[in-house]
């Protein structure tokens, strides 16, 4: 496909909003996989709508750009603009005169990305906007999309319904015609509550059911589960991308530049980023290790997220949803049980109960 399809990443859905404004390491890995999928359907430029200091992002954006051969720019809001406002802010970047639709993805969700099918669906229905929806067990917790099952035409939205009106909810992945931007002004606006209901009222909003898994990873625990689902899907589709070897258990995504020492046991459900060094005798399970991390000898990490350029000391134990921000150093022999550590900190004493380390 030769079409130019800009894409935009919104800062969060209504139910994932708690992650807004945090310098969250999860973005790196997730963005990578969704941007890769966008590239496959001919997207040539990605706009990241962000609301925190861009220098944190900029470093790895350069990597993405060269690796995926795709243009990535940032559009930074100076005041919170909700879930629609950032699109108005990036209006010039999203409109190129071709009249082709653009993608909007929420960075708080992880799923399979059937973008080609979405484009086909959108063209076939001829609506102004198409949103992807996913089936949930407990629709009463979410905003439910009431739609015609046959055509996918959206009738209305019902927020946290007390009686059953449907079991499909907004998955946070949209394909929008440029005309949608005319419905959004540059002020705090909710795309879910203010923009989509109006398009639906005009009979121009369609919903496509997302096949496969979907996960709101606004919470770290969900993120770890999301990673597991993603790796499961990868096992089915592209198993060659997963690491193999005597020290690997289950699904492990290992960057080609990462180094693993002797006597390690890695997996299941582990992603290890670029340039990481994992020394000998290390145990890793159910965790994401971002770019440039060093994990020293005999350390044991489970169910945790290790941010960029962290070091984890010898015989350290990091577990139970510990989240290390960028450039955190965990000293030798330290135990962290669910510690959330802000960037650039040194952890010198054990964290026995989950807490935020400022």
């Amino acid at each position, binding site marked *: 496909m030769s079409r130019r399809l800009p894409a935009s990443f919104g800062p969060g859905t209504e139910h994932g909003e708690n992650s807004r404004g945090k310098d969250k390491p999860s973005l790196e890995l997730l963005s990578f996989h969704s941007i890769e999928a966008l590239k496959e359907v001919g997207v040539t430029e990605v706009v990241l709508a962000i609301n925190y200091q861009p220098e944190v992002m900029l470093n790895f954006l350069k990597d993405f750009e060269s690796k995926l051969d795709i243009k990535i720019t940032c559009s930074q809001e100076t005041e919170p603009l909700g879930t629609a406002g950032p699109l108005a802010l990036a209006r010039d970047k999203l409109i190129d005169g071709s009249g082709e639709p653009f993608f909007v993805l929420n960075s708080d969700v992880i799923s399979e990305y059937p973008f080609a099918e979405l484009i086909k669906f959108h063209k076939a229905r001829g609506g102004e906007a198409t949103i992807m929806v996913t089936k949930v067990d407990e629709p009463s917790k979410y905003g439910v999309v009431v739609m015609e099952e046959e055509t996918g035409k959206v009738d209305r939205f019902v927020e946290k319904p007390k009686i059953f009106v449907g079991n499909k909810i907004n998955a946070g992945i949209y394909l929008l015609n440029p005309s949608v931007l005319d419905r959004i002004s540059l002020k705090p606006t909710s795309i879910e509550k203010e923009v989509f209901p109006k398009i639906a009222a005009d009979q121009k909003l369609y919903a496509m059911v997302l096949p496969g898994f979907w996960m709101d990873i606004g919470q770290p625990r969900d993120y770890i589960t999301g990673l597991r689902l993603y790796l499961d899907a990868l096992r089915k589709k592209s198993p060659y991308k997963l690491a193999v070897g005597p020290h690997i258990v289950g699904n492990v995504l290992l960057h080609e530049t990462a180094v693993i020492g002797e*006597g390690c046991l890695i997996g299941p459900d582990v992603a290890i980023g670029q340039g990481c060094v994992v020394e000998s005798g290390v*145990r890793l399970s159910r965790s994401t290790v971002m770019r440039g991390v060093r994990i020293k000898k005999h350390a*044991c990490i489970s169910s945790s997220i290790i941010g960029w350029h962290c070091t984890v000391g010898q015989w350290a134990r990091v577990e139970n949803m510990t989240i290390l921000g960028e450039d955190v150093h965990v000293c030798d022999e330290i135990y962290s049980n669910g510690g959330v550590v802000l960037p650039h900190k040194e952890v010198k004493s054990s964290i026995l109960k989950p807490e935020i380390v400022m």
Partner: protein
Amino acid sequence: MGSSEERVVAVIMVGGPTKGTRFRPLSLNIPKPLFPLAGQPMVHHPISACRRIPNLAQIFLIGFYEEKEFALYVSSISNELRVPVRYLKEDKPHGSAGGLYNFRDYIMEDNPSHVVLLNCDVCCSFPLPQMLEAHKGYGGMGTLLVIKVSAEAANQFGELVADPVTNELLHYTEKPETFVSDLINCGVYIFTPNIFTAIEDVFMQRKDRANLRRATSFEALQSAAKALPPDYVRLDQDILSPLAGKKELYTYETLDFWEQIKTPGMSLKCSGLYLSQFRHTSPQLLAAGDGTRSATIIGDVYIHPSAKIHPSAKIGPNVSISANARIGAGVRLISCIILDDVEIKENAVVIHAIIGWKSSIGKWSRVQGEGDYNAKLGITILGEAGSVEDEVVVINSIVLPNKTLNISVQEEIIL
């Protein structure tokens, strides 16, 4: 004073099984006095201190454990030190003075000039030869080892007042409610044989008083019912308090360490104190290594010759490893006691903990205490034949014998 006429007999009070309850679960399968500190049975430390006394004739252990529990130890230590060590079993607790008196015929059989008396659950440097010299200089019936502690801690012990010039014991009171003094009784004494006369006097007084009561009022009858058995004589309340200020008792102050070993937490601390004492007294008992041919050793560490330690392990400070323990590759041990036949597998971490006999610690598992020796769950204790499975974390917990842990626990007592 010709040394030929001088003979010293040492008596170590070891208590009995009903007294070691605070030491559970470690006292469930070994008498507390035989629990290893710095790789040696607890009672071994005072015994080897007694051995340094010139003209030591004999050592008695007095307690109400079964004889067979001490038989093996007593015979091996007698051989090792070439001094007779005997275990004397009390039929029931008589108090420390009562116990001493009960066995006066044994104690006096060598016609000693001095009797050293100490409690087994005391951890200190036992400066007995110096104390004996001081005692001879004072010319009294007895000398107590004393130490200064913080005013807040003092009321846990016997508080006493000593004359700053003559060192005479002026006043003694056991565990007072209000502050008396920051000088406390260490539970280490040297007496002349006159101590038996002093104890006998207490018996006589008791008998007289009991006879008197029998003859008099109803009120006295009631208080007699509450009184201790007539043959129970405490050293502190019944001997030290009444004799204070009568030029009979003197004090010798130690500036070294002193602790009482009532709990497993304290045993870990005391193991460390004895290990650091080895640095001066028995450096040959301490391990060394830099990770090339043998494990990396940090600080004071005792490793039994039969224990197998992988060279990639890192051990110390304050670690004591008993017989036949197997420590795997990449294991990290800090401040802990590893008992006989324990296996610790690859990359496991043990910090501030006591690992019971025949226990097994899995790969990448972690057994840790906060390291507060006085808190109930300040160190983690794994009872005999415990098993911690791979990657499991056990923090600030006490695990009774024969338990398998396959999920992580924190601040728990696993029954």
